């Protein structure tokens, strides 16, 4: 195959997107940087052999933490169901966090001002990032055909750090401190120059 196996956008566009190439034979082997794989739970991740047991567990914990922190929240079940499917939404009361196995509320249950609806976490998307791992919760789409990723959360390499060969062991220090800017607009005067070619 001469094309990218899995493609995603996390910042561009109105909602995150993840897609895999049609040919399922490309699965297998260590995930490449930038490639994410979907696992329903930590056990499935361990069973795949893609990552170590410790990494699978750490990633799942990171995804769950992110889910509890930032799962999409809706005022009504209908709004949640529209995006994530009828049977994929759980009611959570205010102050409580979204739950992986949250019990489904019945349709005739009264909505009170302190409850909201969140999609169940259907699994986790996990990938290698630069010198740690990257995991995020995954939700089913309303048509059950695609996966909608949630926000991401890094987990450190654990017992089996995922690291590219030759990469430094830590990131360079961030830039320090403010300095006095004396002038701006010293670049860009020729805005027909643009890019391209």
């Amino acid at each position, binding site marked *: 195959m*001469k094309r990218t196996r899995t493609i995603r956008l996390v910042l561009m566009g109105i909602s995150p997107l993840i897609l895999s190439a049609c040919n399922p034979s490309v699965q297998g082997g260590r995930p490449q940087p930038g490639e994410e794989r979907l696992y329903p739970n930590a056990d499935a991740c361990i069973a795949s052999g893609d990552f170590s047991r410790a990494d699978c567990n750490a990633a799942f914990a990171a995804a769950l933490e992110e889910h509890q922190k930032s799962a999409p929240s809706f005022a009504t079940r209908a709004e949640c169901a529209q995006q994530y499917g009828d049977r994929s939404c759980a009611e959570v009361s205010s102050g409580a966090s979204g739950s992986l196995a949250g019990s489904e509320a019945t349709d005739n249950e009264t909505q009170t001002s302190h409850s909201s609806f969140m999609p169940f976490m259907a699994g986790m998307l996990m990938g290698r990032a630069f010198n740690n791992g990257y995991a995020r919760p995954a939700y089913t789409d309303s048509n059950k055909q695609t996966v909608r990723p949630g926000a991401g959360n890094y987990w450190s390499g654990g017992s089996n750090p995922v690291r590219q060969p030759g990469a430094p062991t830590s990131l360079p220090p961030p830039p320090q401190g403010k300095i006095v800017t004396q002038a701006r607009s010293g670049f860009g005067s020729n805005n027909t120059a643009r890019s391209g070619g």
Partner: protein
Amino acid sequence: MQRISIQERPGWRQQAAEYGFAFHTIDGERYWDESAYYAFTLKQVENDLEAPTEELHQMALALVDEVVNREELLGRLAIPSLYWDWIRDSWRQERTHLYGRLDLAYSGQGPAKLYELNYDTPTSLYEAAFFQWLWLEEQIERGTLPAAADQFNSLQEQLVARLGEIGGLLPQPIYFSAVRDATEDLATVAYLRDCAEQAGIAHREIAIEDIGLGSDGRFTDLDDQRIDSLFKLYPLETMFEESFGAALPNSGVQLIEPPWKAILSNKGILALLWERHQNHPNLLRAEFSQGPVVYPGRVRKPFFSREGANITLITPQGEKLQSPGPYDGGPTVDQAFHPLPSFDGRFPLVGSWVIGDQAAGIGIREDRTLITQNSSCFVPHAII
């Protein structure tokens, strides 16, 4: 290689809108055109495009190694001497180049011919790497293309991997910068930031116009934070001429593309490449222009032109074609006339991408004339 008409995906315009491809139509004219695609065989892709791309890339790098050490060549390429040491130093450091695009004339038969290198600010990246990929996947899913159809396009995968490597070599965050109101460039920058995010590196955005110069000679962002690493989708040679240009060498800023790319974004190197590799199957004869007359069978290109601007083309029969543009008056190079192939009256130009040092995919733009300009359409491709 064939040009084949194909049904458009019904929802592609909405999809384009949702995923940041605002420039699929430019000034009311179609830019993304999926009413047809170019079909290649795997052999054509691997033997005629991928392998020559990597070979030409290596020839280009060898040329940089020679030019940085020979001041008469830096002078011949009209690079201001103020920047020579800085360019040379950047070549001797760890290399942090991200990408480049070679423009190839290819008909499906015979060797592809190098028109030029776009190694500083290449665009049409998002549509080649992402939207073209989506097109193929969805056409396979719809059954419009066979399940075994493929595409020469590992661009996104390799961009993410390469940005991860660069992020390990440069201070973070990396600032991504383009001209404030340039829709297409801003989309390219947004796409690269997305890839940077996926690579796990810290990134910020700043308009080229907003970059500040601090009292200590360093560049700053709008919060007066120092800019240590800057990806700029803005030509190096333009920066050289601007008021902050002289501050570049001592600012400590690490640029992507790095300063040595000023050599490869310069069309004068077409003449230098030809001098060193005469009769190479993928090169067209080229020499530095002598005098104002362009002879039949020659194409005159400014050293610093972009987007097919200011090209003068004289066919062997003496017919003259000229494209307008803002790059008049500078030094030029004359290249042998080798017309683009014609498919149904369209002239496709193959943009062959190099990420890091690897050939990673192609994108095809076609025009109704022999000079490919920024009004050309982007047409997807498949390996069948």
